[in-house]
């Protein structure tokens, strides 16, 4: 049996999915968190049932790729659990009537029951059940309240006999609401007032700058703290062990690969370039701390509901780039890792927007893993180095966006976005989400880092890097002002950008060269994981177009920097 979780965006489908199946999925307080379907299983009266979490949709006529996925899934379900936002019963019922029309066995989870109670909305569940002709169960997904009853009543999901024509639906819903819902007059809560203040331009714009500034500082503070007080000391404890291995191996090919070069007879984790030295140090002592701090802050911002407000405030700017405000969400996610960022472009309405958003993300949005190493690299020059990298990428982002908007046919639709109420994040849920993202880095990132260091060593030994360096030298040395050896980083960058930046460490580059190399490495081509997701989302043809923009853009920007700096 296949059970579908459907409903409007941001009503708690993903949280309920996690509750039912024990499979963790990302849930955040903004519409459009889920953009593809996730399958899980649960036990239902002794038998295995498949449960599918799908993207949210307001109606069965999709307006974005994410909604398309949801509507297509409808054919697959044997039973639909519609998750309904109890604080917005009226408009959620529109989808209910549409689902009823499709003659699918239906059961309703009346979620956010706690919030409804809190703001003084009373719903007569029994009467609603009778009117709709399907079971209705109040739930609070985040605490698990009502989930047991939902499961026990799942077998009673049924095809309702209710019928309504298209233009009667809203009138019918109005009558139902009058019978089942009563709202005690309510005052605007403090969070609501704060919510409005953060969207009014006069207060909202300064606040957004403050939020960004604080986010940046907190990420840096926690990241640096973890590195200095935990991870570097841990590696110091590990050093004697590696030295032992080094002595046991003796000089030779294996030593070069596993340990790398000893610098003045010692291990230098940032320069030795062995799989067991730099290969472990980069992901664990340079990247992981920032992955942790970045996602801690991002998850907090997501869960309290700030992102849609930022989307509205920045809408104007995004229009110049052929996008609208919502596109800031994929870009911010891309700052963590480009892969989920590009996936999230599915919330945009048109293919043109998705192409622009994905291209801009892949080309100008460096991921945390890469940034962490850049920070380690130019950090010794103070914030200045990192600042230059950021400013250059930002300017390139704007110029490229404006150009793409001018060159590509078609126009961009306007923003149309529901702004959820501010919610106080549940720490349990937040930490679980953080852990999921860290796990993703450990599983999908770290092996590639090790592989990258390994391949780099092999390529060096075979003389491939020297060869490519010589061929590419007119561009690398001539135009970009880098050294021939940076060719190695550009090759490995196809695999993993953090390793690529890490490979610059032993080269003794000047600050100017480091800035140029960091910018070029961000822009010139996506890493293999990002490449794969762009091909999947946009197709090979658009990926080629996108890649063209990247290569040309990277060389242009790099050369310009070389001239200016």
């Amino acid at each position, binding site marked *: 049996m296949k059970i579908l979780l459907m409903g409007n965006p941001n009503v708690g489908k993903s949280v309920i999915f996690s509750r039912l199946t024990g499979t963790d999925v990302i849930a955040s307080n903004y519409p459009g968190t889920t953009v593809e379907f996730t399958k899980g299983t649960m036990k239902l009266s002794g038998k295995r049932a498949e449960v599918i979490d799908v993207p949210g949709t307001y109606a069965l006529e999709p307006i974005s790729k994410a909604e398309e996925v949801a509507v297509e899934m409808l054919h697959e379900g044997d039973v639909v659990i519609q998750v309904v936002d109890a604080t917005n019963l009226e408009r959620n019922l529109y989808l209910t009537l549409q689902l009823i029309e499709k003659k699918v066995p239906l059961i309703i989870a009346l979620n956010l029951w706690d919030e409804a109670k809190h703001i003084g909305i009373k719903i007569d569940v029994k009467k609603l059940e009778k009117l709709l002709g399907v079971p209705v169960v109040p739930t609070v997904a985040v605490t698990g309240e009502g989930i047991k009853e939902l499961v026990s009543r799942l077998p009673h999901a049924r095809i309702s006999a209710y019928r309504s024509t298209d233009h009667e639906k809203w009138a019918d819903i109005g009558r139902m609401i009058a019978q089942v819902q009563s709202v005690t007059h309510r005052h605007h809560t403090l969070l609501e007032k704060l919510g*409005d203040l953060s969207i*009014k331009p006069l207060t909202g714009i300064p606040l957004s700058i403050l939020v960004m500034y604080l986010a940046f500082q907190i990420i840096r503070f926690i990241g640096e703290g973890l590195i200095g007080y935990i991870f570097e000391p841990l590696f110091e404890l590990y050093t004697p062990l590696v030295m032992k291995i080094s002595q046991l191996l003796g000089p030779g090919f294996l030593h070069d690969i596993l340990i790398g070069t000893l610098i003045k007879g010692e291990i230098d984790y940032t320069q030795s370039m062995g799989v067991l030295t730099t290969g472990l140090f980069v992901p664990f002592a340079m990247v992981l701390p920032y992955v942790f701090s970045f996602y801690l802050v991002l998850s907090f911002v997501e869960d309290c509901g700030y992102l849609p407000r930022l989307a509205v405030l920045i809408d104007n700017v995004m229009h110049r780039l052929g996008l609208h405000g919502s596109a800031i969400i994929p870009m911010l996610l891309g700052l963590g890792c480009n892969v989920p960022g590009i996936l999230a472009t599915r919330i945009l309405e048109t293919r043109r927007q998705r192409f622009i958003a994905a291209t801009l993300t892949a080309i100008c949005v460096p991921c945390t893993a890469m940034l962490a190493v850049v920070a380690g690299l130019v950090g010794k020059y103070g914030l200045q180095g990192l600042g230059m990298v950021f400013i250059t990428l930002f300017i390139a982002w704007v110029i490229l966006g404006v150009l793409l908007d001018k060159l590509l046919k078609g126009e961009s639709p306007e*923003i149309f976005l529901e702004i959820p109420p501010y919610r106080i994040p549940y720490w349990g849920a937040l930490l679980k989400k953080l852990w999921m993202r860290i796990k993703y880095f450990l599983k999908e990132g770290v092996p590639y880092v090790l592989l990258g260091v390994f391949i780099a060593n092999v390529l060096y030994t075979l003389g491939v890097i020297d060869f490519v360096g010589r061929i590419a030298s007119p561009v690398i040395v001539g135009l970009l002002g880098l050294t021939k050896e940076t060719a190695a980083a550009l090759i490995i960058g196809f695999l993993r950008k953090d390793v690529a930046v890490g490979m610059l460490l032993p080269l003794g580059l000047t600050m100017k060269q480091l800035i140029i190399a960091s910018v070029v490495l961000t822009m010139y081509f996506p890493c293999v994981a990002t490449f794969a997701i762009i091909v999947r989302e946009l197709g090979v043809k658009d990926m080629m177009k996108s890649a063209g923009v990247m290569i040309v853009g990277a060389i242009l920007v790099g050369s310009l920097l070389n001239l200016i700096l």
Partner: protein
Amino acid sequence: MEITLDELEIERPAEIKRIVGGFGFQRRIAALGLRVGKIVRKVASEPWRGPIVVEVDGTRVALGRGMAMKIFVEEIGE
């Protein structure tokens, strides 16, 4: 007097009287509560003709100016 949602003043409650535009557009905004007869309050209006934000049925919805110009309202309680 009927004015567009774009012209409505901040914080002034109004009732939606008429919505022009295609069927798809009407259905889409209806799904978020913007329908004839609903009371709305404009919460914010972003500078340089950026989007506006309205409260309807206790929910905040952001929409572009072009859309706001297709929604006609009448101020209430003067």
